[in-house]
């Protein structure tokens, strides 16, 4: 650390203060504001008395919240792990092919990452269509199903459809991050393992997997956090229906806000926040514990 002149301190302030103030104003302060809001009684947009944890109590006793909580976890974990499985497969493949193929395929894999989840939702909703959808057509043709399925009209299938769409949207990110991880593994390690008599599977198990551990955890962490807060895909494909079957946190949050039920919204916001931070802590401790 050097002793800084006044001019240099001024430079630091000019550089850092705008971002810092912006984040303080739009994220840090609002987070405390939500926590504060959640402790009051709100009646159609007007703040009433301090009621402590009553809003949270309402949440815990609301069957809709139970359902939404379950949906969010199923959707988030389902989408993330299906995405991880496909992404790992793709990354291993792309790591094995030649440089030119890899560069081309990287572009192709990137495209689904860049398009909006709304556009992805729109086209999947169209493909899941009961009467004219290509999924029903292909599955019927290959004899996987006996009759056209009502993908978006039946609770379990609707959730599955959302999960598949989320996984599709998640695969590019996971593929690209894991591919970068695989490319960082020194080739000599594989050669050394081969000299020690390791076959293909053993190389994967004892060379690739340990070195890919951190990238995999990073992918899991980031994709879980982002899918827990997701609004776009379920809202586009099913609007949370049929019934409550695909309603997730973000959809309920929006509904409570537009219904001016601010107390409920704030308590729910805090619940989502705690869930996300909890999962972050869980992953980080799992990674930190084994990372030696």
């Amino acid at each position, binding site marked *: 650390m050097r002793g800084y002149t006044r*001019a*240099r301190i001024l430079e630091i302030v000019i*550089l850092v203060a705008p971002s*810092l103030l912006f*984040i303080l104003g739009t994220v840090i302060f609002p987070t405390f504001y939500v926590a504060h809001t959640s402790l009051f009684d709100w009646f159609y947009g007007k703040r009433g008395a301090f009621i402590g944890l009553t809003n949270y109590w309402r949440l815990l006793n609301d069957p809709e919240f139970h359902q939404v909580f379950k949906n969010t976890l199923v959707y988030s974990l389902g989408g993330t792990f299906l995405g991880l499985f496909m992404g790992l497969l793709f990354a291993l493949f792309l790591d094995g092919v030649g440089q030119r193929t890899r560069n081309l395929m990287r572009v192709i894999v990137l495209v689904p990452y*860049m398009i909006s989840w709304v*556009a992805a939702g729109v086209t999947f909703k169209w493909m899941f269509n009961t009467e004219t959808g*290509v999924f029903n057509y292909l599955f019927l043709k290959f004899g996987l199903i006996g009759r056209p399925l009502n993908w978006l009209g039946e609770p379990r299938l609707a959730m599955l459809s959302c999960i598949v769409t989320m996984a599709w949207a998640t695969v590019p990110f996971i593929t690209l991050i894991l591919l970068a991880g695989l490319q960082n593994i020194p080739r000599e390690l594989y050669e050394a393992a081969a000299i020690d008599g390791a076959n293909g599977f053993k*190389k994967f198990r004892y060379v690739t997997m340990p070195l890919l551990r951190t990238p995999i955890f990073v992918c899991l962490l980031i994709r879980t956090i982002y899918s827990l807060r997701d609004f776009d895909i379920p809202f586009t494909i099913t609007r949370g229906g049929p019934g409550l079957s695909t309603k997730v946190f973000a959809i309920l949050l929006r509904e409570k806000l537009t219904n001016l039920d601010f107390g409920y919204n704030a308590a729910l916001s805090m619940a989502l926040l705690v869930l996300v931070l909890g999962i972050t802590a869980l992953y980080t401790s799992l990674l930190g514990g084994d990372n030696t």
Partner: protein
Amino acid sequence: MNVKTIALRLERKLPFKFVLVFFAAFIVVWSLLPIAWMFVTSFKTENEIYSWPPAWLVKDPTWTNYKNAFIERPFLAYVKNSVIVSFFSVLISCSLAVMAAYGFSKYKFRSGTFLFFLILASRAIPPASLLFPFYMMGRTLHLINTHTILILAYIYITLPLNIWIIKGFFDNFPEELLDAAEVDGCSRLRALGKVVLPILMPAIVAIIIITFITAWNELLYAVVFTNTPDAKTIPTGLIDFFGDFQILWGPLEAAASLSTVPAIIFSFLFARQIVSGLVAGAVKG
């Protein structure tokens, strides 16, 4: 089974080559089929759209669906709003990010680590949890249904990640070059524009594109805070189709196809920069 071994054997054994090509084709179909299907549908006539079995190729391509999206719905206004909102989000978020990241990376100060952590931690807070404060702010400052409220939201959503990505690139920037610039009488701040930025252009391109795409694609804040063509963006325009008595798939797929054009162009032109930005953003932090 390790793919590398397969790749090595492939030169000798033809069946492996077949498996390889098959798998490559699978990745292409998986990634592009849904998008291709969107474009194919958008050029079909109504009869073809609802035909069974589905028509894989378009027999007589038509622009009708595109015309309908623009004539019967205010999509031109939505595109304009999306462009304005994305442009200002990029301009402000990326400028702030470059400045802050430079400050955190090239000036060592006591509270630096803590403040940097504070900004990073804000990335973990779900935007869906902050709808209410944004609503209150919008109501107080009369920002509901304006471009401004969306721009503010997209700046805060993208800023922490941008700072994180760019700081990584700054950290790797050789300190000697800055010292040399200082000897030549160029202050550290001036060196940012004259020495550092020109060299780190690829990284800047990466955050510009990632920010643009985030703002261009965002739905939740757009749906909650805008409700007329004065401020509504493309994703909200797409969602509106589902409010109709009957979903008009042709015009909807046309509008959705249009919304993906920037993403497709950027992917093909700047794949390398985007991927390096993504990887930099995901490295453990």
